[in-house]
């Protein structure tokens, strides 16, 4: 070792002493210094970096559509051009009936999802806390999740008739199992060392749940919410196509109506509205999930 030192021993001692007295300031610059923080905030460059692939993909789809339209594969009253559908979309914005339909659909989605949230969360907590409940309905929840919700509709219509309740019933059945399962796996996957630490710190029973278990389960719970939303939206569209309530416009009714009147541009424009609404809500849940995960130093995930 000493041969590799280029300065005399006493000089080294002085340097070491100086460093040691200076220790407080040099501390953070150790070999295990934390990783530099990621830059945050929204800049035009970052927005563009996120936006252009989506714009490009949309452009490609619209371009392909235009090519198929021009090829004359189907008559234009069945497959209209992108331009015509776009024009119809703009026309929707001025139609009170469209806004009414949109409003009704969104209110149904909101009510159904909120109910599913309450029921799913309650069931999730109950199942994760009780061994009996877990063996009783734990696997049933997974079974419910795999059941296509449209298969519930004939039964729901028998039960409730052609009413709002039939739709809500199926939306809740579609979404609640995902939400419950997300919460259950979140709670099951809380790292045991965190629980041990919390126990040593004196957290027991409800306090342990409230302050440690539930916050630790949050990322998985949010993933469950996102999946629950996707199921709710699908069930709702199926419901609005099957359970048509007179005098109550909705996006689903609008789809049926435009098919019956062979109004292809309006049909496609409505489909685009359904698609965009689903994507926007999905993006909101992704954002929520990213925030939750970033706070914990977890990488963002795409579900």
């Amino acid at each position: 070792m000493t041969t590799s030192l280029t300065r005399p021993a006493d000089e080294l001692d002085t340097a070491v002493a100086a460093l040691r007295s200076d220790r407080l300031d040099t501390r953070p610059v150790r070999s295990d210094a934390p990783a530099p923080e990621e830059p945050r905030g929204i800049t035009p460059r970052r927005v563009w970096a996120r936006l252009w692939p989506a714009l490009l993909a949309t452009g490609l789809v619209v371009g392909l559509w235009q090519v198929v339209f021009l090829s004359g594969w189907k008559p234009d009253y069945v497959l209209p051009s992108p331009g015509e559908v776009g024009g119809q979309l703009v026309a929707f914005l001025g139609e009170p009936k469209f806004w009414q339909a949109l409003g009704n659909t969104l209110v149904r989605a909101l009510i159904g999802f909120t109910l599913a949230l309450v029921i799913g969360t309650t069931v999730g907590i109950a199942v994760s806390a009780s061994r009996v409940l877990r063996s009783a309905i734990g696997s049933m929840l997974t079974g419910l999740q795999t059941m296509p919700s449209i298969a519930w509709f004939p039964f729901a219509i028998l039960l409730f008739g052609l009413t709002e309740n039939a739709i809500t019933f199926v939306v809740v059945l579609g979404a609640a199992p995902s939400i419950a399962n997300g919460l259950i796996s979140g709670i099951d996957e809380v790292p045991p060392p965190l629980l041990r630490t919390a126990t040593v710190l004196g957290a027991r029973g409800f306090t342990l749940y409230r302050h440690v278990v539930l916050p630790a389960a949050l990322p998985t719970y949010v993933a469950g919410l996102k999946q629950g939303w996707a199921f709710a939206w699908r069930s709702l569209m199926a419901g609005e196509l099957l359970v048509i309530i007179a005098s109550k416009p909705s996006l689903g009714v609008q789809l049926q109506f435009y098919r019956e009147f062979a109004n292809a541009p309006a049909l496609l424009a409505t489909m685009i509205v359904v698609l965009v609404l689903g994507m926007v809500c999905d993006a909101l849940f992704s954002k929520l999930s990213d925030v939750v995960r970033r706070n914990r130093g977890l990488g963002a995930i795409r579900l």
Partner: protein
Amino acid sequence: MTTLAPGATVALSVRDASKVFADSTARTVALSEAQLEVAQGEFVCLLGRSGCGKSTLLAMIAGLSKPSAGTIDTHGHRVGMMFQDANLFPWLTVRGNIEMALRLSGVPKAKWPGRVAELLEMVQLPHAGDKRPHQLSGGMRQRVALARALAQECRILLMDEPFGALDALTRDALHEEIERVWQERELTIVFVTHNVREAARLGDRVVVMSPSPGRIVDEVVIDLPRPRRMEDSAVAHQSGRLHELMDLHDTVAGRQEA
């Protein structure tokens, strides 16, 4: 076998403590009839290779598991614990982690800001309150874990290989840190390690443990002035003695098995 100074107050007594893990196929004696007394203000290291029951003993002192036989008495002292991983709650800031400890020990909310500032000052992270655990280095995380354990005014601090995952430089710094805090706060520390030199560096007394079955086989008083340093020749000398002792016990154990 315990050699407490005459007149010392006992902070922790372990009497005939055993831990047996049994299922339908196997019965494992993780710890067999351990005897240990630790004086108030003493720094005791539990030293041994994996499987010698040192973490089992520590978990039982912490109340995380119950002894299968025997008793453990902490004489009413509050017990805090640190692990190899800092185990900070990742959804809380550094401040939030310390506040959680204050909340769980019933400290009124009005006192939190002052206590948090004092504790962060003590572990030399006065400006880290708003950081998230993932933004800290391993050494900084252990400092926060120390502050969190001390937030509860524990008198006995149990440390389960707390610096085992850190690089040597950070570990040296934290050795100085824990030595200082131990003296300032007059803590009683039980420190588990498999690093012989670390035991000689830190302990007033080193309790040597041996595996299969896990048990206490010996103990050595390290009568060296403080503050010590890892490089001190006296620490190296004591560490050499401990090594020889451990080898000796292994040989004896081997002969018994053969």
